[in-house]
């Protein structure tokens, strides 16, 4: 029993991270048809911004701020202006390939310019365990879960309650009509990229203390977030949240109860099943077919 609770809670903490990354993924897809294969590397990079700032003797809070700012600039604005904007009108595929190249670029760039080894990352939360339903859960896991969900909640509130948020939603649903209604579509798309950059930066700060900062850290994380986004529903934020949490839990249970060699296969089977039998995702809405 305590084992199951343990796995469940740890899975939810992992899942909350997946959800953060998956939300960014779906946001980019919705507003600009960008399938970002570099999303995992986007999570890897901000931790290195922070480490670089720490190496220059900045205090932790300042380093985190610098990390966030650099992410917004590089992964948000520059990514959109330099790569996405010129390629957008040529369809989904060349852009997707370009993000694959970007993922190699970021990974190898960090490896060469910083280190090929895993670097420790300062923890933002106290260590230690608390007892929940007889299971020992680390404060780290709980904090990750709480912070990630808080961020998701804030984002939802922003998108639902504020005028800018609603304009962003309108842009995502129908850019031409949004433009007709006087919504500055371009700026809204830029906001989406900035939000994605903030989400991956947060995810980076939350996971790096656990999994260490390493140039290749994004590979598995990116794939998991990818699967989470599709399983939940590629065109819905709540789908990404549910998909992320579900995948985190499934992942952890698979590691415990399926063979260690094939734990990675379970999410993939889930992905194939969902795409074949419910392509819009478990919580998504169907996209109309255009002739």
């Amino acid at each position, binding site marked *: 029993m305590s084992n199951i609770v343990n796995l469940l809670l740890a899975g939810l903490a992992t899942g909350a991270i997946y959800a953060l990354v998956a939300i960014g993924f779906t946001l980019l897809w919705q507003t600009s048809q960008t399938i970002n294969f570099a999303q995992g590397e986007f999570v890897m990079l901000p931790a290195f911004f922070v480490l670089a700032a720490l190496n220059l003797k900045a205090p932790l809070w300042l380093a985190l701020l610098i990390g966030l700012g650099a992410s917004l600039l590089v992964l948000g604005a520059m990514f959109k202006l330099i790569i996405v904007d*010129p390629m957008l009108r040529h369809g989904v595929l060349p852009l997707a390939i*370009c993000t694959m190249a970007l993922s*190699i*670029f970021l990974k190898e760039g960090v490896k060469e310019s910083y280190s090929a080894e895993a670097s420790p990352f300062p923890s933002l939360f106290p260590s230690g365990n608390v007892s929940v339903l007889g299971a020992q859960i680390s404060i780290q896991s709980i904090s990750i879960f709480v912070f990630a969900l808080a961020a998701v909640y804030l984002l939802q509130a922003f998108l639902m309650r504020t005028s800018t948020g609603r304009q962003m939603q309108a842009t995502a649903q129908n850019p031409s009509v949004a433009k007709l209604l006087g919504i500055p579509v371009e700026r809204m798309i830029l906001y989406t990229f900035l939000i994605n950059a903030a989400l991956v930066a947060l995810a980076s700060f939350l996971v790096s203390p656990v999994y260490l900062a390493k140039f290749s850290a994004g590979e598995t994380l990116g794939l998991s977030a990818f699967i989470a986004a599709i399983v939940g529903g*590629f065109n819905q934020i709540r789908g990404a949240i549910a998909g992320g949490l579900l995948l985190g839990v499934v992942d952890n249970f698979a590691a415990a109860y399926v063979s260690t060699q094939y734990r990675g296969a379970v999410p993939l*089977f889930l992905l*194939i099943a969902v795409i074949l039998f419910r392509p819009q995702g478990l919580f998504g809405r169907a996209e109309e077919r255009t002739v």
Partner: protein
Amino acid sequence: MMGAKPALLRAGLLLLGLGLLIAVPIGLNRYGVYIMSLWAVMAIAAMGLNLTLGYAGQVSLAQGAFVGIGAYAVAILMTHGMPFIVPLLVAVALSFAIGWALGYPALRVQHHYLAFVTLAFSTLVYLIFRNEEWLTKGIYGIMGFQRPTVFGLSTRTPLAFYYFCLAMLALATAVMAWIVRSPWGRAFVALRENPIRALSLGVDTRRYTLMAFAIGSAMGGFAGALYAPLVEFVDPTPFTLALSLNILMMVIVGGSGFFFGPFLGAAIAVLLPEWLRFAQGWYLVIYAAFVMALLVYTPTGLLGVADRIMANRRTRRASAARAAAAAALDAPGLNPEKP
């Protein structure tokens, strides 16, 4: 005369390319010849994906898995002492069958969803390579099989094996050229351009979708069957998702849907990183930056640019001809409407 010129030009370019491909490796060292052979193998794999994606419009992120399937089929059967031709045919047939099966999801879902299904397939195949030790020897890999002897000629030396790969590439190219020009090829293009209209015109889109996957995958398996004796060692590491993505990159960078696109794309993906070795660890960074810059500049790939330039020149020539014709018409007595 106007029609004959481009055909002559093309034939000349083809001969020149072939001559270079035959002559260049003679001056290269062992590793250089290996890289050229790798290029030929990857060009075959990319050519297969170009049929699936470029001509038939079905996105597949699983081409690397088929290269793996072909390589393992050959490695396993050859260690059991079979002559190369048998494993080669098995590799192609097996990839064809699995590719056909992988086509079924394409009947239900399209575009990015299809990409994700094939992505999952690709990763699953990698897990099988790594974990089913009774069959694949797992992470230890398979070795101890030899390069084939073709028509009594041994291909043990790198150069001999390179020419063998080149001959296989020529064979694959001929088959592909035949497919693309056949009614099948036109049906594939119809499938890409407008599946619903193709269906309404009586094209059996279901069969052609499966066919596009199966033939493309069989090409991948064929490439894998050459990869195994090229490297003389098969283990799971080369066949991760990265290989599938890399082959997809070759197709897009070269020019998806252009016959010779995969040749160029494979050249960039295989040769360019080698030329950049002087930059040491940075070579992949420079390579990735180059690919990004190239795609931003020309999203339709290298041959897409060439095509655009040719089209522009044709338009200009046509409008010059039109202007000349109009001027001739303006000559006195011919055009009564103008004073």
